[in-house]
């Protein structure tokens, strides 16, 4: 299947004065996952400009974090990245560890990797269902949620919470996974591997979908790099860049996985990159499980979390409220499900950060919409939006 050219339409500059239509998509709209307003200027249905207006979900999370302990920061940040909350937990923990110079045991690193990959899969599954809704494929979302459910159950088994886990803590992970976790994980993986094949039938094998996604919303690699695109969006544009491989953290340099790269940067490429990423994540999870099996659990929980007296006191707050982090600055980045999720922390000593900033990929991707949608039709806007997998909670913090 070769794709010949861009299907972007020429914007017309009529000698006849035709009036432009302005559609206000959102802040409440059935195809938006969370409130954001897109001001779409169009010539009929041909989009000329998309201006995202953000801020409808702004909760002042970064400001709140500046007055709270690191554990509370993790809880708040996981409310920004709610589809893969483990990433936020990891970012905060890694920042604390870097600032305080805490070494994390290898086993805990493997466990963290496992959970991070699991949340990537769960996030991508949700994206897949959402994309189906955007494309008018109403069954996809239910199938996606059905496969996602056992994964959420696994995380609940692990941490007691389905979305906001707080399982990755500074120094390691909160507790050893229960014995039944690995069995459940194997069942989940096996099932998902099969389900992914069925999922392909919904979209990749469907002529209508291929027609709607092929060469739609193309993003060239230069523009993508210049505008801070990352993650699957960047890779779909043909830039072979993955933090897990290029700037390995945890034990990512010890697993083997391939990084899917697209060619045209269109909706279909972004779709295929994400689908392949799910398969790769499954293989990473399998490698993690194998590595964990060969490492004996250390004493004092999984990897010996840095707990201090604050935990035993038990008056409110989190168990490691008392961590004293020395002054300094740290920037931690992970390859999140949506792209490079970074956390910049400025510490002036004390139990919490003086300033904290989240680098959210969705914010950058949302502002790619103008370039992506220009010259396409109104109907494409929603498919493109779906293919970017934008999380508004991350955009508005």
């Amino acid at each position, binding site marked *: 299947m070769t794709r010949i050219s861009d299907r972007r339409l020429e914007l017309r500059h009529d000698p006849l004065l035709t009036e432009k239509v302005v*559609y206000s998509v959102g802040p409440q709209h059935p195809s938006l996952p969370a409130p954001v307003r897109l001001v779409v200027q169009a010539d009929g249905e041909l989009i000329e400009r998309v201006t995202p207006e953000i801020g409808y979900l702004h909760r002042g999370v970064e400001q709140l974090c500046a007055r709270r302990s690191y554990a509370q920061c993790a809880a708040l940040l996981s409310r920004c990245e709610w589809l893969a909350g483990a990433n936020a937990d990891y970012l905060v923990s890694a920042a604390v560890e870097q600032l305080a110079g805490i070494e994390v045991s290898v086993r805990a690193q493997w466990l963290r990797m496992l959970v991070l990959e699991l949340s990537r899969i769960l996030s991508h599954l949700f994206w897949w269902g959402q994309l189906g809704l955007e*494309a*008018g*494929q109403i*069954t996809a979302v239910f199938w996606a949620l059905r496969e996602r459910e056992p994964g959420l159950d696994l995380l609940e088994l692990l941490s007691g919470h389905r979305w906001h886990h707080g399982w990755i803590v500074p120094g390691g992970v909160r507790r050893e996974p229960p014995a039944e976790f690995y069995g459940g994980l194997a069942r989940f993986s096996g099932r998902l591997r099969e389900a992914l094949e069925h999922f392909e039938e919904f979209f990749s094998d*469907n002529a209508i979908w291929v027609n709607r996604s092929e060469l739609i919303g193309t993003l060239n690699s230069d523009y993508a790099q210049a505008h801070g695109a990352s993650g699957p969006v960047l890779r779909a544009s043909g830039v072979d860049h993955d933090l897990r491989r290029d700037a390995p953290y945890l034990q990512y340099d010890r697993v083997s996985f391939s990084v899917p790269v697209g060619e045209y940067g269109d909706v279909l490429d972004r779709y295929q990159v994400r689908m392949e990423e799910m398969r790769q994540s499954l293989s990473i999870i399998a490698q993690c499980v194998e590595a964990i099996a060969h490492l004996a659990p250390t004493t004092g929980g999984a990897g010996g979390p840095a707990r201090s007296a604050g935990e035993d006191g038990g008056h409110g707050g989190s168990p490691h409220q008392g961590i004293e982090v020395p002054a300094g600055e740290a920037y931690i980045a992970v390859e999140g499900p949506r792209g490079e999720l970074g956390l910049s922390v400025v510490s002036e000593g004390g139990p919490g950060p003086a300033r904290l900033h989240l680098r959210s990929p969705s914010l950058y991707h949302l502002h790619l919409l103008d370039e992506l949608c220009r010259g396409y039709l109104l109907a494409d806007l929603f498919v493109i939006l779906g293919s970017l997998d934008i999380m508004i909670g991350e955009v508005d913090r």
Partner: protein
Amino acid sequence: MPQDILLILVRGVILVVVCLTAFAYLTYLERRVLSWFQWRVGPNRVGPWGLFQPIADGVKAILKQELIPRRADKVLYLIAPIISFSAAFTMFSLIPVGERVFLTDLPIAVLVFLGLSSLAAYGVILAGWSSQNRYSFMGALRSIAQVISYELGLGLALMVPVMIVGSLKITDIGNIYRAETWHPAYLFVLLPAGVLFLVSAMAETARIPFDLPECESELVTGFHTEYSSLKYAMFPMGEYMGMSAMCAIAVHFFLGGYLLPAIGGVDLTNWVGLIVGNPDAVWGPQEGYWTVVSLSALGLSTTLTFVAKTLFLILIFMWIRATEPRFRYDQLMQFGWKVLLPAGLVLVFLAALFVVLMPDLGGGAQSTMEVSMYVPR
């Protein structure tokens, strides 16, 4: 004349009652069928198996608060749902549902059907224009374009059996499938025409994958975004009735109408007709009572056959809705004009060749059943 008016009224009441019940349970059926496709349960709480759900839905729709946008064009805003609702219902009155069971059997039923389906578009147009909402407006524009484009495919597909039979009367066309008039060669044109008709009908009734006038993820709900309460409910009613009417017409034109299947050369309709429809032949001359019984048995069996066939097509529509993504607007138009229209023209041409080359086959089914039981004087 008073009896005539009374008869018309009674028929109207029967039509509305039957159609409304059918509509209510079609929504139930669709919700259950979609849930089976989507690994969920669907409505199962109200009454046994959730069977009272449509009633609860209806009560809810009626009792909801009615909102009319301040800047709406009030008269048109009120007329729009009535048009789309009544056009779909009138469509249903054209369709015979069984042997000698029909409300009307017009000699130009096919044309009336096409006319009504184009009138139904006005409901959408007026709704979209009068609501003064961009999404509604866009939905209306798309709907206009879609209806105009796909009506051609629809009409051409219907013309194929019409040309073979040489009549615009629905019962005449259904009669082509009787064992004595059927010829396997008909399949060459009727089968593709049936597919063409179903695709066009799906577009005409704006079902997924052609549901662009109201596609939820783009246009909120399209042309009826600004409608609420019972007026909102009238659009889905019209849509479902339109869909069922299309399926019913498809059954008559391409699936053998209300006739029972002929198995192994034995025409079951004739068989039923022979045993119960014509008891004289079996048990000697009978009077009064037996005639009524046999006629009702024949009517009942054919009606049930018809309903089963129509449901089958409706289930296909639901199946497609559960599994296909939506077309893009321009792709839809291209599909209509560049694929369906040429295909329809080719089929009509083939049908014309058919009629010319085999004149002894065509028109054989004309007017074998001139029954005036329910036809007004």
